[in-house]
């Protein structure tokens, strides 16, 4: 069965947003990131571009893919926060 027109439209618009985010990230590569202590002009556009890319991917997913992606993202973020950053020993 083919997807509903609204769902198909959402997939196409998600693809458009992803292309926009990638184009923005590519254009933003020319601005230096510098360091976190002295953040450069490229750091905020990088964060914004990645956020839009993540949202575009999220919008393009449906069914079980969404909770699976969310679980994966939360696991990766927790690993980064507790394991890498705060140094809490994880099982």
């Amino acid at each position, binding site marked *: 069965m083919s997807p509903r027109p609204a769902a198909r439209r959402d997939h196409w618009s998600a693809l458009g947003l992803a292309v926009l985010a990638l184009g*923005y990230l590519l254009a933003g590569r020319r601005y230096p990131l510098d360091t976190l202590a002295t953040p450069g002009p490229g750091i905020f556009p990088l964060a914004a571009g990645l956020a839009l890319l993540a*949202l575009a991917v999220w*919008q393009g997913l449906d069914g079980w893919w969404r909770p699976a992606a*969310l679980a994966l993202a*939360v696991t990766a973020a927790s690993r980064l926060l507790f394991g890498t950053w705060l140094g809490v020993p994880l099982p």
Partner: protein
Amino acid sequence: MSDLFVALTPANLLACFAGVVLGTIVGVLPGLGPAGAMALVLPLTIKLGPTAGLIMLAGIYYGSMYGGSTTSILVNVPGEAASVVTTIDGYRLARKGRAGAALAIAAIASFVAGTFSVVALQLAAPFVARLALAFGPAEYFAFALLGVTLLANLTGGARAKSLAMVVAGIMLSTVGMDPLGGTVRFTFDVAGAQAGLSFIAVTAGLFGVAEVLATIAAPADFAPVARVPFRALYPSREELRRSVPPMLRGTVLGFLVGLVPGPAATIASFVSYGVEKRVSRYRHEIGTGAIEGVAGPEAANNAAAGGGMIPLLALGLPFTPSTAVLLSGMLLMSVTPGPFLLRDHPQVFWGVIGSFYIGNVMLLLLNLPLVGIFARVATIPPRYLMPGVLVLCSVAAYSDNNNAFDVWVMVGAGVLGYAMRGLGYDPAPLVLGLVLGPVLERSLLQALTIGRGDPRELWSSAPAAIMLVATAVVLLAPAARAGLRLWTRERAS
């Protein structure tokens, strides 16, 4: 306290009247904006003396908040940034033939909120200004982040779509000079883009031009509003009753948001709309032309305008372009705002406060009788109205910086807005991102610099940490709920 009556002298009454009339006109016409209008009349107000001059400038400031709703409701073109959210339900009410009711409720809500904020300003200025001072870059970043996350679900559409539009707006806000280092970004060597994308041009395009394109594309969908009898121009008892709770909520909320540095009136109107969508008894109607969607935001932006005066008068700190012009006016008139204003210039302080009461009454008396005249605009057939809207948008876009590039931005935003409608995206979150983008960037980079690159600086204080946790909860809770629902359904089947 007897200095409060200084506002009643004929010269001050006249200055107040001239200010509120000019402010209403500025609010009705998109483009110039209150700060621009105040800057234009600044030389004249210096000649009037400090009290009358500042009363006139303040009148323009809060008068524009009243007038800003008029074009939002009638032609879907916000008069100024704080009225963007009013277009959502206001314009739909106008299409239903309730333009008069929406305009009247907007005027009444503005009056109630304006009066409340003056009373609160008078009583609470010293205390609340101290609270607002406690906001550093980290708290401000957390507050703005929580704000955009909460408000991303403004129109009741898909949360991911709204969040994507907020981020797209933030991305648009990065065009031009970066707020800290001054590096020019994403201009692609177009000289006109160096100052950034004009907010007015983007808004006029997304709302006004997109509306014109939609009317051209589907002329049959545009049913001109039938002329209604005079009595029906005003709100019914039911509409008045339904407006009271959102008006009160918007008033308190707007005043509190007004204390926080930034585009308070705009943020307050969006916050109020978001709150109404969650707590109103008629929340299912909001977005389809509900009076609550006009009463709450209109009350909030006027209350925020009053709240925004506290840091200016009590501390001498302007947080909006309009209060910055007011500060320059004070300094030019040898009046230094701050803790000693009350001691050194009691007549100026109380005279300006007193004029707020009088100005709010004047605005109500001015706006209510004009409702009938304004509401007739909605009955004009689109073949006459839409070219006018297009001219209005073009003039607004061009006059912002006297820059032809902004007119092209408006056209681009118009096409984008039209496409967004077709794909089910609402432009309001994008506008919010455009406004809050520089605030988020500046506060994030400042916090990182203060913390010497340690991101923990972002949640080093209790208020910032609480707001960031709340942001995470707001972001993750709906997805977790949806996942749980899906899991339960799968198990059941």
